[in-house]
C-alpha cells in the first residue's frame, strides 16, 4: 500500500517547538520591550564594527509591492499586523509603521544603517533579532529593506495589513437561478451550476427504500418502522418523498429526542459529569428539549442561550472546576470560547491564552467577548500570567457593531444578542446551515466546521441556504426540509477513501450511525427501551403549551424581603396545609429553588434537588401522595453561601446572595382545579434556629412573580406546571447517561464542546460489540422480547428483524442462512440473539448510504 508511505503534508505551523517557544517568548519579549522602552530615539543595538558589516542597501529602485510587501507578509505581519501589535508595534499602515512601538521609532529617515528595524532584522545583535522566531531575513532582503528606507519609504495607500475581512460574515442575497428541467428545487439549481462548472453530470438518485432509511435516521434518528415504510413505498404520489419528510418532521418528540444529542454535544449538556453534583455545572435539558420540540426559531433559540434565564443559563455558566484553573478557562472565558465556536464557527481557544497563531483572533478578542459575561472587569492574563491590564468589552467583528463598555451586565448581554442574532450578521445562519449540511451530507460546505472564516466550496449554496433560512424565520425544520427534499441530498452516497486537499462534491458521504442511533436502533429492533430517563425532565412540557390556562400565578417566596437580591445563608422549612374533598384525579408539582429544595408531602419525602443551582423547574407526579381531607406540603429550601470552587474564603459582600422558592402544585379532581402555589399563605420555620423562640413559624414575603430577576422563569415555569405526568418509557439514548457501549461508539464526554464526532470504526469498539457486557445483555433480553409473542414462527421473526434493522426483507438466501443459524443454536433465543448481533454488525446496518 504505497499510500501509507507517502509523507503526510505538514500543517502550516508544523515546527514542533513553535507553540512552546512562542508562548514562552512572547512574555519575555514584552518584559524586554518594556525595560528597553525609550521615549524617542532608541539606544543603538549595534557597535560600529557590527554596523559596518550590514549588507549595503540595494542600488536599484525599490518597489514596495514587489520587494517589501512580501517580506512584511512572510516575516512581520504574524505579530505586528492583522490586528496584532506585539510590543505595541503595528505595521498595518505606513502611519502605524512609522509611529513605532514600545521600542521607539523604527526608522531614521534616510539613514537605514541607523534605523532600529534594520538593526534588528540584520540579525547582528543576537539577543535582539526580528523576526524573533522563524526564518531570519536574507542579506538580500536586508539590502532591499535598507534601500526602501533610504529611497523614501514609498508605501502606496492601497496597501495595508489590516485584518482580512472574514468570509461568511455579511449576508449575501444570491437569488435563485432559473430551473432546469427536473431541477425545480432552488438548492438543486445551485448545485446544478456547481456540477456544470465542474463539468460533472448529476449522479443517480437513491431508490425509495434507501432514501427512507436515510431520512428516517436524519429526522428522528431511528430506522423506518416496517408498516410506515410499506405505506411510503406504496404511495404512488410523485411528491411522496417530500410528504415523508414533512410527516417525519411533524413528529415533535422523535425530532427532539434525536436532535437532542446533536445539541447536547454542542452545548456541553449532560446528565452526569464533572461539576453536576456540587453546583459547578447546570443542565439545560428542560429548556433544550422544549425548544426543540416546539421548534423555537433559531434566532430566539440563540438569544435565549446568550442572555439566558435560569432555565438556559447552564450553557454560558460553563463548568466550574474545583481548585485553581488556567486563566483561559474561567467561566467567562469558557462562555467566550463556546459562544464563538457554537454560534459563529470560530475557534478562540488559542486566542484565550495569547494572540492566535492559527487565525487572526487576539487575546483582546477573547477577553473582549468574555467581558460580556464578567461581573467585574477581567484582568488579562497571557499564557496564564497576569498582565496587569484589564479587558475592554468588545465584539469579534467591529463590522457588525460594538458593545458599550459602560453598559450594565444585562445590557451587554442584550447587546450581544442583537449583534449575533441581528440580520446584519450573516455568520449565524451560515454556521448552522453548515453544521446541518455536514451532519446530513457527511462533509461541510465549510470545513472544518468551526473555521467559518474560510470560504465554502460553494459560496452560493451556503449563501442561498442561509438567506432562505433567515427569510423563513430562522426555522430549523424548514432548513432541514430544504436539504432533505433536495435531489442533492438524495444522490447516491460516495465512499470516502481519502480526504482530498480540495473537496469535490459528488454526493453525500457515507456516514456511520452515531452511538445513540446504534443504541436506539437496537432497542427499536428488539422492542425495548431504557426504562427511566437520567433527567427529571417531563417530555409533555415540550409537546403541549398549556401554562396560560392555569388558574393561579405563583410567587417567589422567602421570609426576608429583597431576598431575590440578597439573603443571609440559611434554610427554612416552608409549609402549607390544604384540604381536598377527595383524593385527586391527577396532581403534579413544579418547583424551583435557589439554592436547593427537599420535597415532602404528608410526611413522605418525594425528592430533592441538586445541592446547588436548582433554579430550573423540576416536575413531579404527586397524585398518589395526596388524599381526601387535610394535606401538608413541606418544602425545605436552603440558601448556601456562594462557592467559588477554589476553596478560597468568600468575600463578605458575596455571602448574602439571592434566595427564593417557587412552586405550583396542580391538583385536578375531575374537571375541578384545587391548585396551590407559593404565596403569602405559606409559613417558614428556620432549619437551625438560634434560640427556641426562633423556631416559631415566620410569615413569608412574596418577592415577586414569574418574571422576577435574576431567575426570569416566566411562562416556561407555568408550562412545566401545566404538563401531564410523563408516563411513556424512555426509548432514546439522548435522555440517558452514556453506557460503556455508547462510550465505545464515540459518545463524547461533554466537558468540551463537540461539533463533529469521529466516525472511524476502531478495534476497541469492535471488541466492545463482540464481547462487551452491555450489548450482550441487551441482545439476550431483546431476543426474548422478540420471540415471546410469535409462538415460535421463526421465518416471521427473521423477516421482522430484517425489516426493522435493514428496512428490507431478507433475500431467500439470507432467510435460509438465518434459519440455519437459529436452528443450529443451543436454543431459539440464543439463535435469535446471534442473528440480531450479526445483523447489527453488518456495514449495511451501521452505515448510512
Amino acid at each position, binding site marked *: 500500500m504505497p499510500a501509507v508511505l507517502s509523507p503526510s503534508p505538514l500543517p502550516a505551523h508544523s515546527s514542533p517547538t513553535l507553540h512552546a517557544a512562542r508562548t514562552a517568548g512572547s512574555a519575555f519579549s514584552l518584559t524586554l520591550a518594556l525595560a528597553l522602552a525609550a521615549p524617542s530615539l532608541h539606544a543603538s543595538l549595534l557597535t560600529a564594527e557590527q554596523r559596518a558589516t550590514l549588507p549595503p542597501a540595494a542600488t536599484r529602485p525599490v518597489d514596495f509591492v514587489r520587494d517589501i510587501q512580501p517580506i512584511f507578509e512572510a516575516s512581520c505581519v504574524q505579530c505586528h499586523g492583522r490586528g496584532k501589535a506585539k510590543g505595541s508595534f503595528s505595521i498595518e499602515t505606513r502611519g502605524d509603521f512609522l509611529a513605532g512601538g514600545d521600542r521607539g521609532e523604527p526608522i531614521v529617515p534616510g539613514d537605514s544603517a541607523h534605523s532600529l528595524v534594520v538593526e534588528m532584522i540584520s540579525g547582528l545583535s543576537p539577543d535582539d533579532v526580528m523576526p524573533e522566531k522563524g526564518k531570519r531575513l536574507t542579506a538580500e532582503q536586508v539590502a532591499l529593506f535598507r534601500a526602501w528606507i533610504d529611497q523614501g519609504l514609498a508605501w502606496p495607500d492601497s496597501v495595508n495589513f489590516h485584518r482580512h475581512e472574514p468570509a461568511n460574515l455579511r449576508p449575501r442575497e444570491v437569488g435563485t437561478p432559473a430551473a432546469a428541467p427536473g431541477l425545480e428545487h432552488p438548492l438543486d439549481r445551485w448545485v446544478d451550476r456547481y456540477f456544470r462548472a465542474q463539468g460533472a453530470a448529476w449522479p443517480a438518485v437513491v431508490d425509495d427504500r434507501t432514501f427512507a432509511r436515510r431520512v428516517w435516521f436524519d429526522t428522528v434518528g431511528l430506522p423506518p418502522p416496517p408498516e410506515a415504510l410499506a405505506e411510503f413505498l406504496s404511495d404512488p404520489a410523485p411528491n411522496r418523498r417530500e410528504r415523508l419528510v414533512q410527516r417525519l418532521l411533524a413528529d415533535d418528540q422523535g425530532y427532539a429526542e434525536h436532535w437532542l444529542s446533536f445539541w447536547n454535544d454542542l452545548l456541553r449538556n449532560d446528565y452526569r459529569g464533572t461539576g453536576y453534583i456540587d453546583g459547578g455545572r447546570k443542565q439545560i435539558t428542560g429548556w433544550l428539549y422544549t425548544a426543540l420540540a416546539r421548534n423555537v426559531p433559531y434566532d430566539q433559540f440563540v438569544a435565549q442561550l446568550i442572555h439566558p434565564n435560569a432555565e438556559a443559563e447552564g450553557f454560558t455558566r460553563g463548568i466550574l472546576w474545583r481548585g485553581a484553573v488556567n486563566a483561559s478557562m474561567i467561566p467567562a472565558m469558557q462562555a467566550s470560547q463556546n459562544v464563538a465556536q457554537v454560534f459563529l464557527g470560530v475557534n478562540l481557544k488559542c486566542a484565550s491564552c495569547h494572540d492566535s497563531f492559527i487565525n487572526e483572533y487576539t487575546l483582546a478578542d477573547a477577553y473582549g467577548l468574555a467581558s460580556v459575561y464578567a461581573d467585574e472587569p477581567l484582568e488579562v492574563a497571557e499564557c496564564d500570567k497576569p498582565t496587569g491590564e484589564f479587558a475592554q468589552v468588545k465584539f469579534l467583528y467591529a463590522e457588525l457593531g460594538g458593545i458599550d463598555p459602560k453598559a450594565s451586565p444585562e445590557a451587554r448581554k442584550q447587546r450581544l444578542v442583537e449583534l449575533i442574532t441581528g440580520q446584519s450578521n450573516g455568520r449565524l445562519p451560515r454556521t448552522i446551515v453548515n453544521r446541518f449540511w455536514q451532519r446530513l451530507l457527511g462533509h461541510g460546505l465549510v470545513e472544518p466546521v468551526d473555521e467559518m472564516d474560510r470560504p465554502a466550496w460553494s459560496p452560493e449554496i451556503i449563501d442561498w441556504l442561509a438567506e432562505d433560512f433567515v427569510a423563513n424565520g430562522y426555522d430549523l425544520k424548514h432548513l432541514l426540509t430544504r436539504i432533505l427534499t433536495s435531489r442533492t441530498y438524495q444522490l447516491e452516497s460516495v465512499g470516502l477513501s481519502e480526504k482530498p486537499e480540495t473537496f469535490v462534491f459528488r454526493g453525500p458521504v457515507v456516514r456511520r450511525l452515531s452511538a445513540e442511533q446504534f443504541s436506539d436502533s437496537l432497542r427499536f429492533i428488539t422492542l425495548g427501551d431504557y426504562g427511566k430517563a437520567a433527567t427529571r425532565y417531563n417530555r409533555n412540557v415540550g409537546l403541549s403549551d398549556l401554562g396560560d390556562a392555569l388558574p393561579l400565578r405563583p410567587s417567589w417566596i422567602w421570609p426576608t424581603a429583597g431576598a431575590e437580591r440578597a439573603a443571609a445563608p440559611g434554610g427554612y422549612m416552608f409549609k402549607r396545609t390544604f384540604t381536598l374533598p377527595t383524593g385527586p384525579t391527577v396532581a403534579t408539582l413544579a418547583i424551583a429553588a435557589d439554592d436547593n429544595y427537599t420535597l415532602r408531602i404528608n410526611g413522605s419525602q418525594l425528592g430533592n434537588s441538586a445541592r446547588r443551582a436548582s433554579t430550573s423547574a423540576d416536575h413531579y407526579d404527586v397524585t398518589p401522595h395526596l388524599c381526601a381531607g387535610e394535606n401538608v406540603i413541606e418544602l425545605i429550601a436552603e440558601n448556601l453561601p456562594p462557592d467559588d470552587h477554589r476553596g*478560597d474564603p468568600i468575600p463578605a459582600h458575596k455571602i448574602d446572595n439571592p434566595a427564593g422558592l417557587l412552586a405550583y402544585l396542580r391538583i385536578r379532581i375531575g374537571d375541578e382545579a384545587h391548585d396551590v402555589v407559593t404565596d403569602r399563605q405559606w409559613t417558614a420555620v428556620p432549619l437551625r434556629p438560634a434560640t427556641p423562640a426562633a423556631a416559631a413559624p415566620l410569615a413569608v414575603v412574596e418577592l415577586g412573580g414569574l418574571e422576577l430577576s435574576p431567575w426570569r422563569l416566566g411562562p416556561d415555569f407555568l408550562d412545566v406546571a401545566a404538563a401531564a405526568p410523563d408516563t411513556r418509557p424512555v426509548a432514546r439514548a439522548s435522555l440517558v447517561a452514556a453506557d460503556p457501549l455508547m462510550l465505545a461508539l464515540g459518545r463524547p464526554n461533554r466537558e468540551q464542546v463537540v461539533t463533529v464526532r*469521529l466516525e*472511524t470504526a*476502531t478495534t476497541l469498539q469492535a471488541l466492545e460489540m463482540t464481547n462487551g457486557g452491555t450489548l450482550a445483555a441487551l441482545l439476550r433480553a431483546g431476543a426474548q422480547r422478540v420471540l415471546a409473542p410469535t409462538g415460535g414462527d421463526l421465518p416471521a421473526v427473521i423477516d421482522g428483524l430484517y425489516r426493522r434493522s435493514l428496512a428490507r426483507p431478507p433475500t431467500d438466501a439470507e432467510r435460509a*442462512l438465518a434459519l440455519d443459524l437459529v436452528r443450529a443454536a443451543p436454543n431459539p433465543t440464543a439463535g435469535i440473539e*446471534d442473528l440480531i448481533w450479526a445483523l447489527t454488525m*453488518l*456495514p449495511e446496518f451501521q452505515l448510512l448510504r
Partner: protein
Amino acid sequence: MNLDLFSLQAAWRRTQPDAWTRRRFLQTASVATLAALAGAAPRSLRAASQTPRLPATADRVIVLWMGGGMAHTETFDPKRFTPYSTGLDPNTVLSTFPSIPTAVEGVRFSEGLEQIASVMDRGTLLRGMQAADLGFILHSRHQYNWHTGYVPPQTVAAPHLGAWIARTLGPMDPAVPAFINIGQRFDLGEGEELKAFTTAGFLGSEYGPFNVPFPEQAADAVRPPAGMGPDRFADRNKFYRRLLETSPIGQEGSDFQKESLLRAMDNAHRLLSSPASRAFDLSLEPLESTRRYFPGYQPGQRFDAPLDRFGGRYEEGMVGRFGLGCLLARRLCEVGARFIEVTTEYIPFLNWDTHENGHSRLVGMKRMIDAPVAQLVRDLDERGLLDRTLIVLASEFSRDMMMEGKPEKAVKDQVPVPEVITDPKHYGMHRHFTAAGSVLLFGGGMRRGHVHGITADERPCRTLKDPVTITELHATIYAALGIPPDHGYDVEKRPFYVTSDGKGVPVRSLFARA
C-alpha cells in the same frame, strides 16, 4: 497510525525476527492508517522522514498506580518513627511505622515493604516528586495531570499517557491492545472525572484504554460474552461472515467506512481468538506462581469487600486484587503488551486516600503491593524482560499529617486534625502534601540501586534536592521509549505535545547510560 509507527515497527521487527510478520502488521494497521489518511485522526506534527527518535532503552511501560495519595514518609522515604500513644501531639508524628533496610546500603523503606526493599538493588527511587499547584486539592484533577501531563481543564480532551504511547508506537503485537488499564472501576465515586483522563482524548478511540476493571476476571475480557460457549461464539462469527457475503451490500464495492468497520471486526476477532488472549486467563498460571503475587490466593477467588469508608477494614479485605493485576501485567508483557497500568484503585476515602485511620489502613495497603511489585520485578528480570520494560510506581501526590498543599502554597485544609491524638483513627497521614513524593522505577534502562532526590527529615518533609516534576518524569518515560518530549500531534490546527507544551526535559541522570 502513521509512518512513525511503520518505521518503529520495522525497527522492532529487526530485533524480533520471529515476533510477527509484515503481513500481520499491515492487516492491523490498516484501520488507523486509513483513518489518518482520511483526515479523521489527528496528524503527527512531523513527517516520517523528520521524526527524530532517541535511542530507546525500553519497549514498554508498566505504571503501577497508587491512586489516592501515597505518603512518602510511610512508604519509600521513612522519617522518624513515633509509635501510637494516647495524647500524642500530631505535630511530632512524621512516620507511623519504623523503617527497614533495603538491598541498597543506606536506603531505608517503611516497615511492611520488605519484599520491595529486597529488590531495591534493581530500582531507581525518586524522592523529590513534585505535584502541580492546582489550588484546592482534588485527587481526580491531580490524577488527570499525572496521567495526561496537562492540567485540567483543557479546551481539547487530553490523551492519557498510555494513549500517547499507543498512538506513537502502536501495539508491540497486533493481537494485544496497545493500552491496557487494569483494576479501576468507574462507578465508585468520581467516575466521570476518572473517565475524563482514562481516554485517548483527541487522538481518537483507536488508541484508548482496553479496560480490565476486575483483574481476577480478566479472562472475561477476551472470552465470548457470558453464557456463550466457544463453539457458539465461533458459529456466530462464521454466520456473520456468510451473511456479509450473502448480503447485497456486502457484494458491493468497498469504501473507507465499510473497510474500516470490517477491519475493526477482524482485529477484535483476532484478539479474542489469538494465543495472546490466553495471557488474560490467570487460571493458566501455576498456583504457586500466583501465590507469589498473592500468598493467600484461592483459585476462582473474587474480591468484594464492602465499600466501608469508615470502618478502616476495606484495604485488608482487598489484598490480592492488585497482586493479580500485577500478575496479569507480567503475563501481558510476555505476549507483547505496549503500555499497561495496574492500579490499587482510586476510590474516594479508600485505599491510599486515608482521610482517617491512616496508619491501620496502610498496613493493608502495603500488604496489597509489597509481594506483587517485588515479584513482578523478579519475574520480568528472570525472563529477560526487565531491561526493556520500564516499571513506574507512582501516586498523584503525597500525604502529611499537618500540611495541606506545600509550605509556600498551603491551601484549604480538608481533614481536621485534633490538637491531641486520642483515637487511633487520627494516627496517620491524612492531609494532601505536594512538596515531595516517591516514585519507584525499575528496568527500562534506568539505573539500579539508585536514589535521586533528598527530602527534609523534619516537617515539612519537603524536597531539598533534585525535585522532579510530572513533566520531567513524563519526558523521562518518553525518552526511555525513544519518543522526544516535543513529539506531538495536530488538533484543531494547534500543536499538542506529549509533554506539556513540548517542554519536558528528561532526567538523564536516571538512565544507566546517561
